[in-house]
């Protein structure tokens, strides 16, 4: 339904987007995952028409959007730090898009209430946006973008400015809302957990290019190169192969046993413990153990790798 075709954008000669192509099917949520500076936000600006591409095109339902100004595209955008209208209250923000489309006032009334209820802000109509918390502001921004029922909803790191707990809550809400409404969305983030939680498919971007697109399972199973693997948190890349930390078994070397290396670092991540082992050949290997009792820093250990945990790149 939304198709981005070979789009290139240059800023002062340097490409911010370098031949990017991407498809979003009707009702699909595609997340774009990449570090900052990878061109994710520029991609969204091109789709909305706020940024004109130097080459390439954007198609919506088969129609070339070149020359169509942002306000006639029917594409919604949730900005990273909201960009709410500071001179209007919550209601004024939420129904803005409906007013622009000349919707009848009874319909505005009904739709506005519906959307506010959807994002859990019933009763906030007359509040000034300046008095809202960060999470509430983000809900207003979402409601504002959803109200006119855009063909495609774009979200630019919408949870980026929130703290962890709030982020998790909004993530759940977002996923529920997407499902309820059957929204077609392109969602940009640098957070791997967010991307995997929300995306039907994930597009990994790096330096202005899309380097891999796939379902979360596909990506996890077969990262296209070591950079992607590292970015997904897969850790060990050895000789062109990814070794999953869960596939690495580590145990203390018994007395007299030579062992394979020394534990260099131990960090606990919830139920699992991550160990970094310095092998005798000088390289490091990361292991994830679901154990309470585990080797400590400085212990000599022996290492075993389950062949099922080795993924070729």
């Amino acid at each position, binding site marked *: 339904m939304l198709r981005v075709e070979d789009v290139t954008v240059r800023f002062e000669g340097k490409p911010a987007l370098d031949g990017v192509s991407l498809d979003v099917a009707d009702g699909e949520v595609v997340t774009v995952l990449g570090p900052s500076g990878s061109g994710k936000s520029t991609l969204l600006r091109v789709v*909305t*028409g*706020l940024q004109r591409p130097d080459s390439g095109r954007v198609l919506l339902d088969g129609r070339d959007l070149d020359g169509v*100004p*942002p*306000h*006639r*595209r*029917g*594409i*919604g*955008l949730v*900005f990273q730090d909201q*960009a*709410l*209208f*500071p*001179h209007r209250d919550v209601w004024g923000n939420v129904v*803005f*898009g409906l007013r*622009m*489309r000349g919707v009848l006032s009874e319909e505005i009334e009904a739709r506005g209430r519906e959307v506010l209820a959807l994002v859990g802000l019933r009763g906030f109509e007359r509040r000034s946006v*300046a008095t809202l918390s960060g999470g509430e502001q983000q809900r207003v921004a979402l409601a*504002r*973008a959803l109200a*006119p029922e855009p063909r495609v909803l774009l979200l630019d790191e919408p949870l980026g400015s929130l703290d962890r707990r709030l982020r998790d809550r909004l993530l759940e809400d977002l996923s529920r809302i997407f499902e309820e409404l059957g929204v077609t969305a392109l969602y940009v983030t640098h957070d791997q957990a967010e991307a995997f939680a929300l995306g039907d498919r994930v597009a990994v971007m790096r330096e202005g290019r899309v380097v891999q697109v796939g379902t979360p399972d596909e990506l996890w199973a077969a990262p296209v190169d070591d950079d992607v693997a590292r970015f997904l948190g897969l850790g060990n890349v050895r000789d062109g192969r990814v070794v999953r930390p869960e596939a690495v078994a580590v145990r203390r070397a018994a007395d007299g046993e030579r062992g394979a290396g020394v534990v260099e670092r131990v960090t606990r991540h919830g139920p699992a413990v991550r160990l970094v082992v310095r092998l005798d050949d000088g390289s490091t290997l990361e292991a994830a153990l679901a154990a309470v009792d585990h080797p400590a820093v400085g212990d000599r250990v022996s290492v075993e790798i389950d062949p099922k945990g080795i993924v070729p790149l």
Partner: protein
Amino acid sequence: MPLGFLLLFFVYPLAAIVQRGLSTGGEGSSLDVLEDPITREVVWFTVWQAAASTLLTIAVSLPVAYVLGRYDFPGRSLVRALVVVPFVLPTVVVALAFLAILPAGLDRGWAPILIAHTFFNVAVVVRIVGTFWAGLDRRVSEAAATLGAGPARRAREVTAPLLAPSLAAAAAIVFLFSFTSFGVVLILGGPGYATIEAEIYNQAVRLFDLRAAAVLSLVQLLCVGLAVLVTMRLEARLGVSSGFRPERDVLSKPRTAGEKALVAGSLGGLALFLGLPLLVLVERSLAVGGGHGFGAYRALAHPTSAFLATPWEAVVNSLVYASLATLIAVVVGGLAAFAVASSGGPRFLDWLLMLPLGASAVMLGFGFVIAFDTPPIDFRSSRWIIPAVQALVAIPFVVRIVVPTLRAIDERQREAAALLGASPGRVRREIDFPIVGRALAVAAGFAFAISLGEFGATVFLARPDNPTLPVAIFRFLGRPGELNAAEAYALAVVLMTVTAISILLVDRIRVRRGGWF
């Protein structure tokens, strides 16, 4: 100390005016002045010309404010600096420039007054609105675009309401300046067009009706007090607007041909409007007889019939007075700024310090004349009287420049310095002083330029043997003859040059965006 200075040199002369206005001849006669149809005409003219000047100024300035607020182009900061020059140019110089450039018949009356006021105040609107515009989050407007608002709709529903506080504040300031305009009105008004300010001068100096002048001064004080209150309210609202962005996030380079034409067109138009009168002024100063030459400049060294000194002595007088006035203004204004900016600072001091800004130079000059020529304080013959009155006019500007800088110092900077081991004294030395020092330097430059060009108050106090530049120019204008006119133009060019240099120098050390200048 600032309070004492203000009490002596501001409140006391005002009190003298009040006393003069109300006492002589009983209350009934004071009311006579108010009921005089001429007074009403003057007040009416003052109000409508100020309103019209404000509208005209905004109309002329908005395109440039837009260009400065939205586009990044080479020379942008130079434009921001240059546009301030007309604002601090002496009124006498500007009036003379428009006298030179406007065709005979059009060069006197309300039209040239409005044009000259616009010339002065473009800087106010361009700087305040342009800076504010450059801080408006572009994405708020973009959000409206993605929600289906076209360009006209965005201008009306998003940009205009967000810009409104800055426009209102700028308009209030322009109105205040136009309301209290003196030199321009005196020279360009011709018969029949007098503001309250010019009428005070007429009554006091030409008709020797001190009572009428005093009553008019009270009317003026009332109006200006109100206007200052409104201005400060509007200014306070500027600070609270949310959603500000660093300029580099907002500005973009003009890309399309249309955008380039817009930038070039509005800047070119402004350059023409601001530059042409000054160029013509220079041309006139060089025109002697049939050709061009430096005759008028050479004549400046010789005694003249216009006053009891050579024109070059007026130049020297001006520089000396302005330097002394700057010193006083920076010391008093700087101390006042610290008092105002400190959290427990008295609110009324802030307001009191603003008053001389509009409280009308002419009124101050007049107040000085009637307050200090008799015991207990006979101060009129002192050489300090002119620097004192000029400092008074300059102090509000010093305060306006320094206070925002002081308030802008983030408390966390001080805390960070303290945590890094700086004692309180050290914090002041390492954090406050360097930041405020630059603001004070900027303020000094402004004070110097303003004192140099000060006309309304000085014209009351300068004696024939020690005129300042603006007064000398004015005296030349009152004399017939081509040489007198040429000498007036030549002096105006000298004054303009010195003023422009002092302003462009301080603009190089400008520290902080926002504020007025």
